[in-house]
């Protein structure tokens, strides 16, 4: 399959750090990005007539200041972490997965239908079943985009976005149609939601009286699995190798199309698990749609990209990164209640953080160039992806 030999306009290489920058620089840059974004957020708070210091104190106090708050933050971080860790896998294979939203929805739909079909299976079996169904649903949706890229050269950036919209409409179709709660039809209210799913599939609460449920350790476990997959298995080596240099990989006998498809399938599977956990860890224990995607996913499919980029595309660093963004979501709600500051501000802040993280590449590269000047002449300091097309 000569598929990826010809450079395509949508085939890009994320500059994956292979040369180790000093570790404190590696940590400093995301920290600076977050602080800069918060500083700009402070200006926006001021423009709204709110005191930024007390505003941020409210936010972070609500998110991290108490066990209840932290438990809430951890729950909010689950989908961010799962999608983010999946994004790490995809981006490492140089596959840009923007389809987290759709993959979450498809995972949730498949796992919900499993729970609706087998309501009496005991928890010990049913919970793994619904999680697996979620993974399969998401992986399937991701693999479509992956196969389109691998075998038909279709930009996965565009196809995943289109598949997001298709998935959301499919969710609306099912939740208004075959999967709707019969009670809603009988009452004539017709809210597009499933019935209360079987208690056997509820994710058990871990801390009495709080929101923290089994989804939190599951997400940590899966993120750790993503790390093992990427750096401790032959599969992960192939994925990273394809991402770093598809031509060399092909000569080494690695199938580029297969690994591109696999990267999107893995990434989708993680998003799918996130979707399943959103359903079975929710307080209403049912799947609801508001007609768009954000009502169900809370934009985790997109924000997961932010999490992964801030984490330097590392599944384990995604854990603190996801906690930060999860905390910002919890804090934003608190801020909205306390100071009537719209939570849309926080979405804008997320975007700003990515903007700063992305721009920090420049400083990383500069320190990299500076370190190499003595070792090599000008020609070979060109480490950028421009010529290894």
């Amino acid at each position, binding site marked *: 399959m000569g598929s990826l030999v010809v450079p395509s306009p949508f085939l890009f290489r994320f500059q994956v750090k292979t040369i180790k920058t000093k570790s404190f620089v590696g940590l400093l840059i995301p920290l600076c990005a977050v602080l800069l974004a918060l500083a700009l957020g402070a200006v926006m708070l001021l423009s709204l007539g709110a005191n930024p210091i007390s505003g941020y104190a409210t936010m972070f106090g609500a998110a991290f200041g108490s066990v209840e708050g932290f438990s809430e933050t951890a729950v909010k971080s689950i989908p961010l972490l799962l999608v983010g860790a999946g994004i790490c896998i995809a981006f490492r294979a140089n596959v840009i997965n923007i389809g987290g939203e759709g993959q979450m929805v498809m995972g949730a739909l498949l796992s919900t239908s499993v729970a609706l079909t087998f309501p009496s299976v005991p928890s010990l079996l049913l919970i793994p079943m619904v999680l697996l169904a979620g993974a399969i649903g998401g992986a399937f949706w991701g693999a479509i985009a992956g196969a389109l890229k691998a075998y038909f050269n279709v930009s996965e950036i*565009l196809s995943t976005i289109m598949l997001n919209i298709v998935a959301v409409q499919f969710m609306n179709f099912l939740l208004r149609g075959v999967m709707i709660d019969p009670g809603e039809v009988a009452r004539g209210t017709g809210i597009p939601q499933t019935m209360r799913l079987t208690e056997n599939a509820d994710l058990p609460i871990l801390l009495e009286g709080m929101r923290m449920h089994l989804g939190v350790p599951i997400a940590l476990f899966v993120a750790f699995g993503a790390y093992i997959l990427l750096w401790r298995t032959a599969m992960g080596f192939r994925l990273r190798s394809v991402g770093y240099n598809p031509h060399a990989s092909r000569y080494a006998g690695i199938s580029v199309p297969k690994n591109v498809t696999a990267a999107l399938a893995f990434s989708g599977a993680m998003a799918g698990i996130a979707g399943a956990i959103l359903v079975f860890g929710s307080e209403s224990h049912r799947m609801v749609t508001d007609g768009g995607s954000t009502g169900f996913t809370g934009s985790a499919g997109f924000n997961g990209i932010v999490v992964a980029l801030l984490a330097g595309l590392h599944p384990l660093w995604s854990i603190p990164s996801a906690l930060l963004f999860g905390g910002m979501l919890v804090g934003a709600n608190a801020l909205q209640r306390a100071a009537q500051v719209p939570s849309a501000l926080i979405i804008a802040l997320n975007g700003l953080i990515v903007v700063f993280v992305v721009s920090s590449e420049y400083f990383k590269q500069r320190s990299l160039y500076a370190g190499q000047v003595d070792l090599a002449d*000008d020609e070979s300091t060109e480490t950028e992806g421009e010529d290894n097309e």
Partner: protein
Amino acid sequence: MDGDILIQILVASIAAGTPFVYAALGELVTEKSGVLNLGVEGMMLVGAISGFIAMAKSGSLLVAVLCGMTAGALMALIFAVLTLTLMANQVASGLALTIFGVGLSAFLGLKYTSIALPGVPELHIPFLSDIPVAGQLLFSHDILIYSSLVLFGFISWFLYKSKAGLILRGIGEAPKSAHALGYNVIGIRYLAVLFGGAMAGLGGVYLSVAYTPMWVEGMVAGRGWVALALVVFASWRPLRVMAGAYLFGGITIAQFHIQGFGIEIPSQLLSMLPYIATIIVLVLISRDQKSIRLNSPASLGLTYHPNNQ
């Protein structure tokens, strides 16, 4: 099929296709200079809300258009600084711009969600608009639709008939050679990116001020991404961009009429139609890698380092 309904559908398709015309033509110019800006969706959203606010405050379409274009260009400026000056990855920066734009537009639009604007009146060109069929099809639209046609004419002329356009395309094909000839690669790319942003902003203004004169959070609804797909679909040629935009507008409109013809398809499945169509078209277009490679600007998406010669 009733002839009147057909004309109505065609007229509506032109209106539905116009946001794509603006955004995709702008992105075309940006990409011709070798820069891939994935932030179209974000720029359209910020353009849409800025134009909407300006229209609500001033009541003047001209002010709304100018505000929307400026807002789009300012968003593009962020992208330009990131990718051209700081040499950041274009894909990641474009994504960041969209995520930022979604949040910023929602934030700016909070107080404007329940306002309806009067809309933009159709401009009936005397005599010409009275011609049956053609009059309705061609000569009874609002001014923003006419100006999109002017824009198309201008861009076709600029890219293929003007010296500046030749330089722009040259930079997209071979930035190093253009640099060696003494052209300011970074400066010209800045202009191309800003132009793309202004046009995306204008496409947003058309949506929020003329097409559906109100503000709804996230109202661009994926159109920015479709515009990006259209540029690929059009193999980077202005005339094909126009054809693609109206075709896509037509598919969007068709979903509203299919049920009218007594075909029983759930509306949700119909709403998938434009997006599935995009995927199918992308498969058909992208399968032929040679034509993609021949038509796409050779340096598209690659970071240019002026000092690393």
